[in-house]
C-alpha cells in the first residue's frame, strides 16, 4: 500500500516535471520564424517511416548502425514491459499481465531479454568507441566538457538499467522455481524467460529468500527509477533525438538539396524594378531582418533541428572543410544553436516570459564568422544526418545577415559581388565580351 502511494507520487512527479520541460522546449522551438510545410503528407510519412523508424540513413555506416539498432529496438520493445511495471506499481500487483497473456507474455519478456543482451553489447561497444578507440568524430573539441559527459552518462545509465532488468527477472526466476515469488503460480515451475531462466540460478541460486526478494525489489525499483530519471534527463541532454527524430524527419526538406530558400522580403524590394504591377508578399509595416543574427531569426524547423541533434558528428566527418582542418564543424553549428536557444529560453524564464536583451547573439558569441565563411555549401552534412538535420540552412541564414544587414563579408567576396553587379560575371570581364569565345575558335 505504502509502496503503491510512493510509486504513484513518483510517477506523477516525474511526468509533471517532464511535461513542464517539454513545454519549455516547445516554446523555445516556436521562438523561430514561421515556415509552412503544408502538403506532401504521404511523402512526409514515408520519409519518417524510412529515416526515423527504419533508421535508413544510419546504415550508411553498418557497424555503428547495427550496434545502434540493438539499443533502438530494445528501447522500443521495453516500453511494453514498462506498461506492466507501471500497472504493478500503482496496483501493488506482481507480474499482473502474466496469467492472462500466458505464452505471449513469456515470448515478449524473452524477446526483451535477448534485445537487452544485444543492447548491453552495443552500449559497451559505444563506450569503448568513445573513450578507448578515439573515433575522430567522437573526440573533436566541441565535445569537451558536458557533451562528452552527457554521452557517457547515458551509456552508463543504459548498462545500469539492463543490469536492473536481469536482477529483477533473475531473482524472480529463482523465487518462482521455489514457489516463493509474488507472481501467481501457474504450476509451471519456471518463468521461462530466455535469458534469466539460466542467468537467475547462476547468479542468485545460492541466496536466501530474503536476499532474493531484496535483489528482485532493487531490480524492479531500480528499473523504473532509471526510466523516470532518463525521461527527465532527456530535456537536458542530446538524447532528445529519440523523440524529435520522428517529427524532424516528417518535416524534412523534400526539395532538391541544391535549392536554397527564396527570401520573399528581398523579392518585394527587387521585383518592382522589373514589374510595376508587382504585389508585395510580405507586410511592409512589419519588416524582418534579412538572414539570421540570433536564434529568433531562424525558422522553427532550424530550431527543432538543433534540439534533434544527438552530436554523432557524421556531418562533421563528411564536411570537406572539417576534414581539412578548418574551424567549421556542422555539428558545432547545431550545438551552438541549441545552446544559444536554451540561453534565450532561460532568459525568458527569468524575466516573466519576455526576452530581455543580453547583448549576445548566436552569430559572434557562439558561431564565429570564420566558421560560416568556410562552408562549401556542398550538402555533405545534410546528406549524412541520420535524422535529416540541415546545418547548411543555418549557415546560409547567418551569411545572409552578414552580407545584407552588415555588409560584412570577406573582401574577395565583395569584389565578386561588385563584378557581378557591374559586368554580370564574378570576374572583371566586360559583359559585351561574353561571346568572344565564339570568334576565338
Amino acid at each position, binding site marked *: 500500500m505504502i509502496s503503491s502511494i510512493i510509486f504513484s507520487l513518483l510517477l506523477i512527479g516525474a511526468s509533471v516535471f517532464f511535461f513542464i520541460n517539454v513545454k519549455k522546449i516547445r516554446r523555445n522551438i516556436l521562438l523561430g520564424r514561421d515556415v509552412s510545410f503544408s502538403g506532401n503528407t504521404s511523402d512526409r510519412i514515408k520519409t519518417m517511416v524510412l529515416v526515423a523508424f527504419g533508421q535508413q540513413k544510419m546504415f550508411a555506416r553498418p557497424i555503428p548502425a547495427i550496434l545502434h539498432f540493438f539499443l533502438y529496438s530494445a528501447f522500443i520493445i521495453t516500453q511494453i514491459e514498462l506498461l506492466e511495471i507501471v500497472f504493478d506499481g500503482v496496483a501493488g500487483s506482481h507480474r499482473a499481465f502474466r496469467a492472462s497473456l500466458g505464452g505471449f507474455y513469456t515470448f515478449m519478456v524473452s524477446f526483451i531479454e535477448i534485445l537487452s543482451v544485444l543492447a548491453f553489447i552495443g552500449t559497451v561497444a559505444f563506450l569503448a568507441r568513445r573513450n578507448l578507440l578515439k573515433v575522430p568524430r567522437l573526440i573533436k573539441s566541441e565535445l569537451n566538457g558536458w557533451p562528452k559527459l552527457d554521452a557517457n552518462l547515458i551509456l552508463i545509465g543504459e548498462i545500469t538499467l539492463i543490469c536492473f532488468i536481469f536482477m529483477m527477472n533473475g531473482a524472480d526466476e529463482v523465487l518462482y522455481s521455489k514457489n516463493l515469488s509474488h507472481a501467481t503460480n501457474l504450476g509451471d515451475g519456471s518463468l521461462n524467460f530466455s535469458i534469466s531462466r539460466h542467468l537467475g540460478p547462476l547468479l542468485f541460486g545460492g541466496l536466501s529468500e530474503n536476499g532474493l526478494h531484496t535483489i528482485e525489489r532493487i531490480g524492479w525499483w531500480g528499473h523504473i527509477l532509471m526510466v523516470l530519471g532518463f525521461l527527465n534527463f532527456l530535456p537536458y541532454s542530446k538524447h532528445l533525438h529519440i523523440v524529435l527524430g520522428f517529427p524532424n524527419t516528417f518535416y524534412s526538406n523534400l526539395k532538391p538539396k541544391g535549392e536554397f530558400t527564396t527570401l520573399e522580403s528581398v523579392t518585394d524590394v527587387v521585383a518592382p524594378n522589373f514589374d510595376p504591377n508587382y504585389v508585395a508578399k510580405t507586410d511592409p509595416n512589419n519588416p524582418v531582418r534579412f538572414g539570421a543574427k540570433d536564434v529568433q531569426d531562424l525558422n522553427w524547423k532550424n530550431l527543432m533541428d538543433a534540439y534533434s541533434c544527438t552530436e554523432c558528428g557524421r556531418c562533421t566527418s*563528411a564536411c570537406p572543410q572539417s576534414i*581539412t582542418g578548418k574551424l567549421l564543424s556542422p555539428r558545432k553549428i547545431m550545438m551552438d544553436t541549441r545552446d544559444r536557444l536554451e540561453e534565450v529560453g532561460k532568459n525568458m524564464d527569468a524575466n516573466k516570459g519576455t526576452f530581455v536583451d543580453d547583448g549576445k547573439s548566436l552569430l559572434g558569441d557562439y558561431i564565429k564568422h570564420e566558421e560560416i*565563411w568556410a562552408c562549401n555549401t556542398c*550538402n555533405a552534412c545534410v546528406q549524412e544526418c541520420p535524422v535529416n538535420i540541415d546545418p547548411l540552412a543555418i549557415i546560409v541564414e547567418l551569411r545572409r545577415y552578414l552580407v545584407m544587414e552588415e555588409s560584412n563579408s570577406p573582401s574577395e567576396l565583395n569584389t565578386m559581388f561588385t563584378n557581378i553587379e557591374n559586368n*554580370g560575371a564574378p570576374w572583371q570581364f566586360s559583359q*559585351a565580351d561574353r561571346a568572344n569565345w565564339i570568334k576565338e*575558335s
Partner: protein
Amino acid sequence: MSTIKVPTMQEMIANGETPDILFWVGCSGSFDDRAKKITKAIVRILNHVNIKFAVLGAEEGCTGDPAKRAGNEFLFQMQAMQNINVINGYNIKKIVTGCPHCFNTIKNEYPALGGNYEVVHHTQLVQELIDQGKLKVQGGEFKGKKIVFHDPCYLGRGNGVYEAPREIIKKLDVELAEMKRSKANGLCCGAGGAQMFKEAEKGNKEVNVERAEEALALNPDVIAVGCPFCNTMMTDGVKHFNKEEKTKVLDIAELIASANDL
C-alpha cells in the same frame, strides 16, 4: 576538326527562326580559358547532332549562383530577374547548361521568381542523345583507359544526377573506377559556396588537394568532371602532386568530343 557554328538568339530571331534549346554557357564557360574548351566541346556535340540551339551571347549574365551561396540574396534576385526577363522575352522552353551551378540555379531557384523552364545539364543531354541513337559514341583514344568520375556537388547531391555522367563514360569502352567517397557521399572539390572566389580559411590542407589525392590513389588516366569549377580545382590538385603528365582532368563533353573526332 570542323569550325563550330554558334548562333545567338538575336541572330536566330533575325532569321525568323526559333531554337529548340538554349545553351546557357555560364561565366566560366564564357571567360575562363580552360572552361572555354569545354564550352566548345559541348558546341561540337550539338553541331554534330544538328540540334537547333542558340546562345544568349552578350545578353547572358551570371545566374547569381555565387552571390546566392555567399548570402547576397539581393544581388542574386537582381541577376535572376534580369535573366528571366531575357529568357522569357525569347519564349525559351528548354535550356542546357555547361555548369552544374547554373543548372541548379535556373532549374530550382528561378521558378519562384517567374522563370519556368525544362533545364538539363550537358551530361543529361548527351545521355539523352545517345539513348535516342542521335549520337554514336566510340572509345577512340580513351579505349581501355582508366577513368574516375568526380561528382559535382550541385549535380550529384544537389540534384540527384549520378548516373548520366557514368553511363556516358561507360560508353567509351573504358574502366570506370569509383572513389570511396562518390555519388551521394562524394567529396566537394573545394570551389562551391563561393569559395572559388576567396582564399580558404586556415586549416591543415586544401580541399582540392584532399580530393585529388583520393582520385590519384586509383592511378587513373583521366579524372572526369562535369563542372568547370571542379575542373579548375582538380587540375590544380593533380598539379600539386606533379601528376599532370599521367592524369588528365577532362570534362565529360571533352571526352565525347575528342574520342569521336568532333
